[in-house]
């Protein structure tokens, strides 16, 4: 349903005058209808930028974005109403995603006001319906964001995002700002409405466990590139790319019996203005092969189980 082909998004760097940051570097994703694709990575990976670009919040510097096989790259930042009603975003940090001066009713009604003719009592009814779907009672219509808890605010954001019955929902760290007990409820809820409303998810997160739980496919990003992409079970169970392996090893497991000391990945994430030559990961990679890994950009290889890896080992 959604496809990006060699997507490139660059920004002028504020800190380093004149330098350009390639936040997204040749990213090719494919989302089928009904998929939940997890986009995983750390700071600087570009995962958030991918999500924002698809929703038209950042300009595309190179490559194409296709929606249902139609090239919409040029229309993304315009007010292309038809696309905007088919893809919506749930943002990170529910605490700032809602206008503090607007009641919940007005916040959730906004997409309806922009794209439909609903007004007055009919509009109120529809908003109340949406709130019911996310599990909030009618009283919340007239409340202000600061009166709600984090979990409730996130539900409101979800209600707002599904108001226009979109096909695609881009979720940017939807539960990172929430407590574990609330996160669990929101995640369960997201899974249930995916089936119920027939949604497709692009789920952006740095939390691997959450991605594993929600998504059937995963793409791992590092410094703007996708280093591994495929079925979630395969990637988590048998990671091929050294970065994916390091990432999985770094996650502390909530159970007893773990060794206290380990071999954590060395070094820091390189600055995006000063990218390493060749494979971006080779400076920290244990299996790095001098002469091979630092020479020229690394192409993507398709493996037998259908996944894609960007690594010279394959």
């Amino acid at each position, binding site marked *: 349903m959604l496809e990006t082909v060699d997507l490139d998004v660059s920004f002028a760097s504020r800190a380093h005058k004149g330098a350009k940051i390639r936040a997204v570097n040749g990213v090719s994703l494919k989302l089928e209808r009904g998929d939940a694709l997890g986009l995983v990575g750390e700071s600087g990976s570009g995962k958030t930028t991918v999500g924002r670009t698809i929703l038209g919040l950042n300009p595309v510097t190179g490559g194409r974005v296709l929606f249902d096989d139609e090239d919409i790259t040029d229309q993304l930042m315009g007010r292309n109403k038809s696309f905007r009603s088919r893809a919506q975003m749930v943002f990170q940090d529910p605490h700032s995603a809602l206008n503090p001066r607007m009641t919940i009713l007005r916040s959730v009604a906004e997409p309806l006001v922009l794209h439909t003719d609903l007004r007055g009592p009919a509009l109120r009814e529809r908003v109340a319906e949406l709130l019911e779907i996310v599990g909030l009672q009618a009283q919340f219509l007239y409340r202000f964001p600061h009166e709600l808890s984090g979990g409730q605010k996130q539900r409101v954001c979800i209600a707002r995002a599904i108001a226009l019955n979109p096909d695609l929902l881009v979720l940017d760290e939807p539960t990172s700002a929430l407590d574990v007990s609330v996160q*669990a409820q929101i995640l369960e809820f997201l899974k249930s409405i995916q089936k119920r409303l027939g949604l497709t998810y692009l789920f952006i997160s740095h939390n691997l466990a959450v991605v594993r739980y929600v998504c059937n496919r995963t793409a791992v990003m590092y410094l703007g590139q996708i280093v591994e992409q495929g079925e979630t079970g395969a990637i988590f169970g048998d990671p091929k790319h050294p970065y994916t392996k390091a990432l999985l090893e770094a996650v*502390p497991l*909530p159970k007893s019996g773990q060794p206290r000391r380990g071999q954590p990945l060395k070094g820091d994430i390189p600055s995006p203005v000063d990218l390493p030559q060749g494979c971006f990961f080779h400076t920290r990679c244990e299996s790095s092969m001098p002469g091979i890994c630092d020479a020229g950009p690394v192409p993507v290889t398709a493996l037998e189980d259908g996944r894609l890896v960007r690594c010279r080992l394959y």
Partner: protein
Amino acid sequence: MTEQPFFAIRDYRLNFRTFDGVYQALDGVELELERGQSLGIVGETGCGKSVTVRNILGLLPSPPAEVVSGEILFEGRDLLMLSKAEMQKIRGTEIAMIFQDPMTYLNPVFTVGTQMIDVIMAHRRSLDRGERMTRKQAREHAIEMLRRVHLPNPERQIDAYPHQLSGGMRQRVLIAMALSGSPKLLIADEPTTALDVTIQAQILDLIAELVDDLGLSVILITHDLGVVAKVCDKVAVMYAGQVVEYGTIEQLFDDPKHPYTAGLLHSIPDPEGAATHLEGIPGFLPNLLDPPAGCRFEARCPKAMDVCRRVRPPALDLDGGHKVACHVYRPEDVNA
């Protein structure tokens, strides 16, 4: 055995005087730590974990915070009873603390070296003349500390400004600053929450190394149960100002007794993929301006009984140090 533990908090009750009333933040917190061990304090927002440790070093402003009762015992001395001057001597040299966001805790207009040297010299000021250091010696000491925390190129990085360092490096600097006074106890308040996963692994490994090699005792506050399981020896689970369960990692993770602990463990998606359904814990924190008379978790507890609403559950030592505060367990359940 009445041997004094290295560090203990006993029956600690603390209120905040606010505009809306008296906020009963802590209600009888009980904790213990042996020398050379690491204790994790876990809980969600509002459980009081940060409040508990801030007052160890007297960092809570005293109105509005009011200690109602309790003791914070460090090597036998009650820290709550110390004068300002005595507390000043302890900070940094006996007990040191690091915080969550290294960028906000480092002064952006001074180099790392200047800040570290200031701290080192300040620690020495309280000692006798013979033990004081010159700035040059302090600088050497600082470089040594940076080396100890595995900061690459310490001789050069000591003259760097905080914004020139990455998040992980800044946290290492904070740890180095904390170690520069040779403390016996390190308190770390969410030290890795703001860091990336791979960097977090490095910092946790560093903390584990310090515990193993230096015999440093650590109190680690976090909301992440995985972090606790990896680095700590003992763990205390807090909810609404109380410690609801306390034990070793094996005790707590393999056999969680308190319904809240069990609920938490069932809410975490498993990185290894086993979970098929996440429970979550429905409901909200009780209003601590008017807390319930009985168990504070009662309203959300799947095992709540009538007595839970009326009587606050006492802490029972079930089995070799595994303590729970829950009416489900009767004194008869206590093993030797």
